[in-house]
């Protein structure tokens, strides 16, 4: 009996391995190995046109060049990271506010399942369309002669077009919020939908105000969703170089943008060193956030 069971377990495990193996292989070849190579190559040497497989910390020293000598002024890399963090914080705060409100509406105020599905789909469809198009879609609105500027001019609020609407930090934040609020809505909605509605009714019956119910029941129970959404948004913004590039008119620096610039110069080890720094940062943020919640239990 027990031998049969052991054999059965072994067989079941073998089948599981055959089923999961292909996916693991793809991740191994196109995610884990590349990641390891990024770390290894970040410690290699390079010249104008090729990578030299010989230990060198040049990628790092050049990145942090002047960071000590220029004190108390900030060196380029620190300034860039500070700017990226600021961007990250702004986008996080705005997407969280919008995402939470939208999810709350969908979970608690839309009563029929059909309407819930329809309205959720309405929020999801843009996610399935191109990000670049959703970025350039702001040009007719925010451009020099765009709707906003011409509207404000006609209304007499301004006499010459506002220049900071497009190709600016404002535009970058706006586009990032536009693109990625979805990543907040989904996990928060997912947490909220699992909240037992009777809990809320009990709170009301016990005399809690709407605000108290929100603060003491809904937010604590939606915390896992909030944390997962935050991880998504923060990691996306930390590594973003496309939105920052397109909406910032290729003029704004960011943690992701540095890597792209180094790559365009074919300085692979330097790009890799910057990637490792970014990876470290991202890892720290995720680690501190995921202490708040067990991600695996939530899926």
């Amino acid at each position, binding site marked *: 009996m027990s031998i049969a069971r052991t054999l059965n377990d072994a067989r079941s*495990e073998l089948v*599981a391995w055959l089923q999961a193996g292909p*996916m693991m292989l793809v991740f191994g070849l*196109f995610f884990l190995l590349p990641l390891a190579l990024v770390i290894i190559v970040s410690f290699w040497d390079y010249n104008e046109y090729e990578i030299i497989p010989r230990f060198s910390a040049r990628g790092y020293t050049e990145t942090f060049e002047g960071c000590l000598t220029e004190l108390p002024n900030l060196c380029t890399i620190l300034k860039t990271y500070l700017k990226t963090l600021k961007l990250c914080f702004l986008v996080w705060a705005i997407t969280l506010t919008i995402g939470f409100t939208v999810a709350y509406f969908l979970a608690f105020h839309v009563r029929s399942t059909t309407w819930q599905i329809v309205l959720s789909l309405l929020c999801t469809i843009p996610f399935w369309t191109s990000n670049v198009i959703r970025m350039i879609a702001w040009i007719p609105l925010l451009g020099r002669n765009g*709707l906003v500027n011409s509207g404000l001019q006609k209304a007499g609020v301004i006499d010459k077009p506002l220049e900071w609407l497009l190709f600016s930090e404002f535009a970058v934040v706006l586009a990032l919020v536009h693109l990625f609020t979805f990543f907040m809505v989904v996990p928060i909605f997912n947490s909220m939908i699992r909240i037992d509605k009777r809990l809320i009714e009990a709170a009301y019956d016990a005399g809690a105000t709407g605000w108290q119910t929100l603060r003491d029941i809904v937010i604590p129970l939606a915390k896992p969703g909030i944390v997962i959404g935050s991880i998504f948004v923060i990691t996306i913004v930390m590594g973003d170089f496309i939105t920052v590039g397109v909406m910032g008119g290729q003029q704004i620096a960011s943690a992701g943008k540095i890597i792209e610039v180094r790559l365009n110069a074919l300085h692979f080890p330097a790009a890799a060193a910057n990637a490792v720094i970014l*990876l470290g940062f991202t890892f720290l943020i995720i680690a501190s956030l995921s202490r708040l919640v067990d991600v695996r239990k939530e899926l």
Partner: protein
Amino acid sequence: MREGRSKAFYLLATFFAGYVLFLYGPMIAIFILSFQGPEGGLTFPMNGLSLHWFYKLFAGTGIVDIGSAFVRSLKLGLVVTVVTVVLSVAAGMAFRKTFRGSAVLFYTAIASLIVPSIITSLGIALEFRLIDDFIHKHVSGWGVGAWASDWQTGMGLFTSGLGAHLSWTLPFGLLIMFAIFNRFDHRLEEAARDLGATPSQTFRHVVLPIILPSVVGIGLFGFTLSWDELARSSQAIGAVNTLPLELQGLTTTVTKPDIYALGTLTSAVSFLVIFVALGVILILRKRQARHGSDAHAGIP
């Protein structure tokens, strides 16, 4: 909460409507503007109404070779879709048993989803670059044949490009499979087994028909994510560009509405795929309901 609509409802509904307008408004603006007259510019007002910019796109006179980028993206998207569906369903089935390494695979998938795309893209580029260097320096001297000395690069649409896209679509596929099987009634499979079905029969006749609508959903994610993928492709696609890469390149140079026409065209493909997939899902659900199975009840 059983009484009539509260003031909070109307407030939140207005907020939601505002959010939807914010989501769709700008896109609708460029869809309209892509039908600008030949003299029209990048902003309103409309200067006539025409298909001029679409003709220009296909004539290939203005900007880069859009036609072939379009075909490349389509081919890659279809391959990514098929591979994502097959691998996700297989791995999803594996996670229903206990096996060593399941935690490793799970966390790898999550990591692949949240490690910034530029890092993955750079890593894949390095990987192929090192392979190329190795072949150039060493293998070509082994006399293993002409291929080694003629070797250009291993990078390409269906090598590094495919891998980059899969590292992005597979985590979504796996997470959708988790969502499906969390709500799956295990007793259905046990019943099939008790009636003497083999594992492959159980899968084909019981499990697959029930999960099929969601599997179509995985395909939808696979295609649309690949069709619009940009960050991971940026370093890992090789010599040729996909459509989103061409489009990104255009944002810095183009001053005419042909970029909107291209945007409208790309979105049209996305919308077509989305609505076909949603339609198929709806039909499959209806069929399940009609055939009297209560299996769908667990999957909203």
